[in-house]
């Protein structure tokens, strides 16, 4: 049976990659992801994981090696954060367009400048449109479980797309959390060997990644967009099957006391559990508030989100990233536009908090719900980028 152990979340994520029996790891260390790749490097060096660990001089090369290895039919894992992800940007587009199911553990961190090694969601949001399946964990257990599931989703013959698992840097990576780790035997058969039908093979030559002249580029992009939208079916199956087999249930959208809520805070990542404390406190005062967590970021779960939000009066979207000169943050603009065509829809307002490692206090969460209350009362949006916890 699965044991409950106290383990640093980074190590648990690396162990998930070991238990997935990856063939190739290529990564470059960066805070706060370093312990993940260090642990994998020692597993390979100590002979506990029969994999090729490709050391590289940059994240750009790490992602290039991962895409190449996956195209050769290997099960591939990498991990990065922040500037490292930004440096991968060019190659991030190749993984989905070549349909190579690389799995990436992304320790979410702010971007320079000023230089910050601390947590927010600027890194993942900057790569929103690269075509990766993107999913958020809000604690260490979820990061471990979702890393395992990411291989199952990405490598499914109906998907064949890369998957990034997001978890908050430091807040999760460096925490020792009690979590259930599978015994290796329990996972036997969970991940079938990866058979990539189109793998590069000198006995069966073909070209992967050719030039797409104007005559075919448009059609290629349509094919790719349909592929990620269709991956939703497999994502649902994998989440459901995991819950049935192992008892931990995951959904593309998660709820906390939101069914009868007038004001809903929309979250992603580890803030979700922290904000639940504020919901409990406000519920005690008789306020009908709740949380909806947007766990699945890409493909965007339109219908689930609409179903979760339409009965509320107001949704306050918490962005962990600023969209400079635009709507407060990318999550706000996506949520607002997803609801736009609904005949009955809540008011949607946004706020930004927790940038570059700034703690979000209980008072801050309560203030977020108050933004919703005031918005309902006055019908007037606060300033366009409302930052909660800002000194002013």
């Amino acid at each position, binding site marked *: 049976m699965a044991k409950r152990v106290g383990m640093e979340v980074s190590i648990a994520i690396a162990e998930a990659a070991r238990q997935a029996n990856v063939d190739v790891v290529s990564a470059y260390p960066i805070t706060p992801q370093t312990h993940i790749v260090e642990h994998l490097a020692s597993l390979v060096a100590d002979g506990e994981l029969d994999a090729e660990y490709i050391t590289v001089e940059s994240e750009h090369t790490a992602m290039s090696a991962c895409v190449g290895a996956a195209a050769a039919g290997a099960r591939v894992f990498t991990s990065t954060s922040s500037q490292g992800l930004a440096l991968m940007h060019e190659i991030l587009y190749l993984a989905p367009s070549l*349909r190579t199911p690389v799995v990436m553990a992304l320790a979410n961190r702010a971007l320079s400048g000023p230089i910050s090694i601390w947590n927010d969601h600027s890194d993942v949001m900057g790569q929103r449109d690269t075509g990766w399946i993107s999913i958020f964990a809000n604690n260490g257990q979820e990061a471990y479980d979702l890393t395992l599931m990411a291989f199952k989703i990405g490598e499914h013959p109906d998907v064949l797309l890369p998957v990034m698992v997001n978890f908050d840097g430091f807040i999760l990576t460096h925490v020792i959390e009690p979590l259930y780790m599978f015994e290796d035997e329990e996972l036997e058969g969970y991940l079938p060997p990866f058979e990539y039908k189109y793998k590069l093979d000198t006995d069966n030559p073909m*070209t992967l990644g*050719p030039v797409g002249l104007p005559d*075919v580029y448009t059609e*290629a992009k349509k*094919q790719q967009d349909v592929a990620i939208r269709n991956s939703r079916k497999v994502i649902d199956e994998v989440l459901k099957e995991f819950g049935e087999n192992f008892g931990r249930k995951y959904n593309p959208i998660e709820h906390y006391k939101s069914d009868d809520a007038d004001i809903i805070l929309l979250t992603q990542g580890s803030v979700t559990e922290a904000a639940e404390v504020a919901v409990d406190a406000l519920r005690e005062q008789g306020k009908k508030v709740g949380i909806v967590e947007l766990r699945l970021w890409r493909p965007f779960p339109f219908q689930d989100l609409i179903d979760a939000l339409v009965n509320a009066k107001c949704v306050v979207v918490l962005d962990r990233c600023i969209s400079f000169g635009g709507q407060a943050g990318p999550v706000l603009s996506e949520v607002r536009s997803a609801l736009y065509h609904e005949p009955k829809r809540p008011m949607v307002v946004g706020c930004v908090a927790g940038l570059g490692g700034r703690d979000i206090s209980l008072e801050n969460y309560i203030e977020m719900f108050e933004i919703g209350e005031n918005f309902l009362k006055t019908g007037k949006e606060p300033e366009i980028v409302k930052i909660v916890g800002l000194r002013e």
Partner: protein
Amino acid sequence: MMNPKPKWTELTFACIIPEPGNSVEYKTGDWKTLAPVVDKKRCIKCGTCYIFCPEYAYEKDEYGYFNPNYDYCKGCGICAVECPASCITMEEEVKE
């Protein structure tokens, strides 16, 4: 050969080209504005043009001279620059 203008549903998976060596079907000759013309009187048959041509357009004839195949020559001019005998000139293609 695949339909050159496939619908998105007809396109191969991830745009792979499953058939090796089919680039010969793609003629790049109509890209050029200037075409290389070899002055055989000065050619030393060294094959530098053949080696440098990015389209592999040069073909060796029975006398050992290298001649560009205009179906594939895209007019880049590399051969004319590299020829050690300076016997290749880039000229307007004259339509008869």
